[in-house]
């Protein structure tokens, strides 16, 4: 028997939205930490570190996110690691985000004028304060619009987690749609929820981009 789309169904979608937000947040925080490590490894003087992280980035940028989710979810299972779906999905998204954020931030670090590195070196600043106080604050500012752009992609990308049985917003929409036989209405609501989440971020990103452009034009 079909039901009509009411408050209960909307509540179910909101539950899905919560998981979407949580998953994106975990992926972004995990990916932020991992990405920082990847970016620093990519610009390090160690050829070995650069090669390894280069291969890692190539792998995760060169395969669909869907495949990555599959391989990690079922792959970890085959290795005897029976993790709850959400943990496996969080690991997959973290690895995915680390690769992309690492590459975005590597580009930003390398975009800084050589003189910034030289001035920091000439002052005797060691690696840690050189990166933490001089290089990264500037690089992350340059990279902010691209970082926000990636976050928006990441939020939408969480819909793929449905493939391993994770009930986030898109999957919740599918379930409600099957119950109510009103796919157009349900998915319009689902789309609106995604839009409400992503659009302010995009807007914020382009505002920052404008501000940086004005600052560098001066």
């Amino acid at each position, binding site marked *: 028997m079909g039901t009509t789309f009411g408050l209960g169904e909307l509540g179910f979608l909101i539950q899905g939205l919560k998981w979407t937000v949580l998953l994106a947040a975990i992926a972004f925080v995990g990916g932020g930490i991992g990405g920082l490590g990847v970016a620093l490894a990519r610009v390090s003087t160690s050829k070995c570190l650069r090669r390894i992280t280069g291969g890692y980035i190539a792998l995760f940028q060169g395969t669909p996110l869907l495949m990555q989710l599959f391989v990690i979810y079922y792959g970890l299972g085959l290795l005897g690691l029976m993790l709850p779906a959400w943990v496996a999905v969080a690991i997959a998204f973290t690895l995915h985000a680390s690769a992309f954020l690492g590459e975005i931030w590597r580009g930003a670090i390398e975009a800084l004028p050589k003189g910034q590195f030289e001035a920091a070196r000439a002052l005797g600043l060691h690696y840690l*304060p050189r990166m933490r106080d001089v290089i990264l604050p500037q690089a992350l500012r340059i990279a902010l619009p691209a970082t926000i752009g990636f976050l928006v992609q990441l939020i939408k990308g969480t819909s793929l987690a449905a493939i391993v049985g994770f009930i986030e917003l898109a999957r919740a929409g599918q379930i409600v749609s099957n119950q109510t036989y009103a796919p157009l209405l349900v998915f319009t609501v689902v789309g609106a929820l995604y839009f409400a989440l992503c659009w302010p971020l995009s807007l914020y990103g382009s505002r920052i981009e404008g501000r940086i452009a004005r600052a560098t034009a001066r």
Partner: protein
Amino acid sequence: MPSTATHTVDASDTADAPLIVMENVNKWYGAYHALRDVNLSVRRGEKIVLCGPSGSGKSTLIRCINHLETIKSGRITVDGVRLDESSRSVDAVRSEVGMVFQNFNLFPHMTVLQNCTLAPMRVRGVTAAAAEATAKRFLERVRIAEHAHKYPAQLSGGQQQRVAIARALCMEPKVMLFDEPTSALDPEMVKEVLDTMVSLARDGMTMVCVTHEMGFARQVADRVIFMADGQILEQADPESFFRHPTHPRARSFLGEILAHH
């Protein structure tokens, strides 16, 4: 090559030992021989002006002194510390050597004051209050204290370069290296930077300056060194150098440079 630990040369403890010694230094960029058997010794308190046509290796030479460039062979000793590949020797040398760049290279996301306090706090470990007091003293000295809370982008080129000088001085270095400090400046700002450098020289700072400002060389240099093709071709006190350059390359270089001044 066996790595030798940073060691102190006994002679450097005496005040008249040279502060910087470069012996048979060679540097290559791929197939290009950038420095050829360079020998140079800088006394404490000495002011040296390095000049020569572009690509002659003068910037490369001073960048070797604080290990911004690595050398292929030869040895460099700064205040008794032999520069090798060890980070300990590099750190030891860099904390005693101040450098001023052509493009200022101030940190744009920090205020003038923060630019000046960062290295003393992070490298010397002094407290924020002590670092600020030192910074204010040197900012006063380069006559820019009133802009301490501005960001570099809010200052003119000449002001930024004076901040860069103050920033280097805040580490209380034993020698200051200047890499074409006025080349990126608008003409009307050259003087304020040169005046600052002259006053620094008067106070007895050891200075090695790559510059084409021959007036400055005449005024403060103890020695003018002329380089071409990665070699030191001539060195003399400014009077003799400007009056009777002996090397033909130095003569033609001076002819070209002075024709425009």
